[in-house]
């Protein structure tokens, strides 16, 4: 990860001076580098030896594209903060944030150079993320089920981690594992947001406000009374909806445990060395347990 941080810092140093302050703000603090970790773990699951330059470069580019999605998400969600700091559009303005995200995408493809497999995978990622966001937005406040949540989350965070797995193993062998890891990540994030609602009086309000189908919401709206509030939040009590979501947490955690087990099965079936992948599953699973 130290090498990755150095690559990112060098890349920022080579970028346009006009955008450098915004890029430093976005990239140089607070990231968990979970997606690069997934790439490295998937590489280690099928190969031995040091991480080659092409894989390191893939890790750099996934961080670039991931941050593009964060910048756009924060604008769409009207989030004033991320990781305890002002979001890019809050600090530098929406125009600057939008233009910087386009710049980052162009730079990402430049960094891939002649890695045609990488180019195809990143193109797939951007397309699927765009479709997933539109789908999720179109389906908000609809009385859908857990299987619908699974499909949406699979195209959103699932696609991100599928691509990470493919960038790491370079054969597609671990693609399904990546999808399950992303699904688990998305679900743990959903559950963590609801726990934030319960414990800290914050977090996840945007999802409630916008009627986004999270895992706790998909479980809660099996109750027709909750469905009414979910589908028409202006006519109902959002705080009451929040309480219903909190009540689903044990069932949501059990569902996440089952996804984690699916991921472990996939890792053991298709990885040459499943240990790094199982460790990733465990680390992801902890995200909702705080």
């Amino acid at each position, binding site marked *: 990860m130290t090498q990755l941080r150095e690559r990112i810092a060098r890349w920022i140093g080579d970028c346009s001076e006009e955008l450098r302050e915004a890029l430093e703000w976005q990239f140089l603090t607070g990231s968990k580098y979970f997606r690069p970790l997934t790439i490295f773990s998937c590489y280690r699951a*099928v190969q031995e030896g040091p991480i080659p330059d092409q894989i390191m470069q893939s890790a750099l580019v996934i961080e670039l594209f991931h941050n593009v999605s964060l910048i756009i998400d924060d604008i769409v969600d009207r989030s004033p903060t991320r990781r305890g700091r002002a979001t890019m559009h809050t600090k530098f303005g929406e125009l600057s944030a939008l233009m910087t995200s386009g710049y980052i995408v162009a730079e990402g493809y430049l960094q891939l150079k002649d890695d045609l497999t990488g180019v195809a995978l990143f193109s797939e990622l951007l397309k699927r993320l765009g479709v997933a966001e539109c789908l999720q937005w179109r389906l908000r406040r609809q*009385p859908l*089920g*857990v*299987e*619908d949540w*699974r499909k949406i989350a699979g195209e959103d965070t699932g696609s991100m981690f599928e691509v990470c797995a493919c960038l790491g193993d370079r*054969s597609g*062998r671990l693609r*399904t594992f990546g999808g399950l890891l992303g699904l688990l990540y998305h679900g743990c994030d959903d559950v963590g947001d609801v726990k934030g609602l319960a414990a800290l009086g914050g977090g996840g309000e945007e999802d409630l406000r916008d009627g986004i189908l999270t895992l706790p919401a998909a479980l809660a709206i*099996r*109750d*027709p009374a909750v*469905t009414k509030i979910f589908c028409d939040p202006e006519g109902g009590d959002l705080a009451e909806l929040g309480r219903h979501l909190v009540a689903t947490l044990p069932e949501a955690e059990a569902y996440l445990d089952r996804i984690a087990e*699916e991921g472990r*099965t*996939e890792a053991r*079936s*298709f990885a*040459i060395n499943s240990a790094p992948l199982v460790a990733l599953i465990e680390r992801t699973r902890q995200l909702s347990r705080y």
Partner: protein
Amino acid sequence: MAGDNPGAPFPATTLLGPMIGVFGAMADWAAAHRQRFDQPSAGSDAHSPPGGQHNPPVADLLLPVGQAMVIATNRSVSYWLGLAHIFESHQITLAQVMGVAPIDGDAAGSERLVAADRLRALLRELGDLATREARILQNELSALDEGLAQTFQQPELSGSYRRRWRAKT
């Protein structure tokens, strides 16, 4: 329908237990037949020429055939066991789905949505199981294929004729 004779079980729900039993029996049958291919020497003896001398090229071909059969049988066992496990874990869901009787009001629609969601989960798991077993089968046969190709690679070949590629693992 369940509501017509409250004393009798719904016909479809009585089939679940036997269905799961059939899947388990298929797995047992496949496991029993796997033993035939786990002993390649039994097969090769039948093809030995008189005098007990083995013919290496024939054995080189017969052994992978036996191994392929073991691989296919193993996956078959795994698939049938997986099916049994899935249907067992969804037994309550299936019973509820088959036992849902139409009632008036919003609850009917909500119950049907929940039942449909659970049925979709069952269908997804069945598809995932089949896909996963097929992928494992493909990987194992691919490794066997690679071994066979390496065995029969002619050592005198060189340059561009020499086989350099490897099967994806």
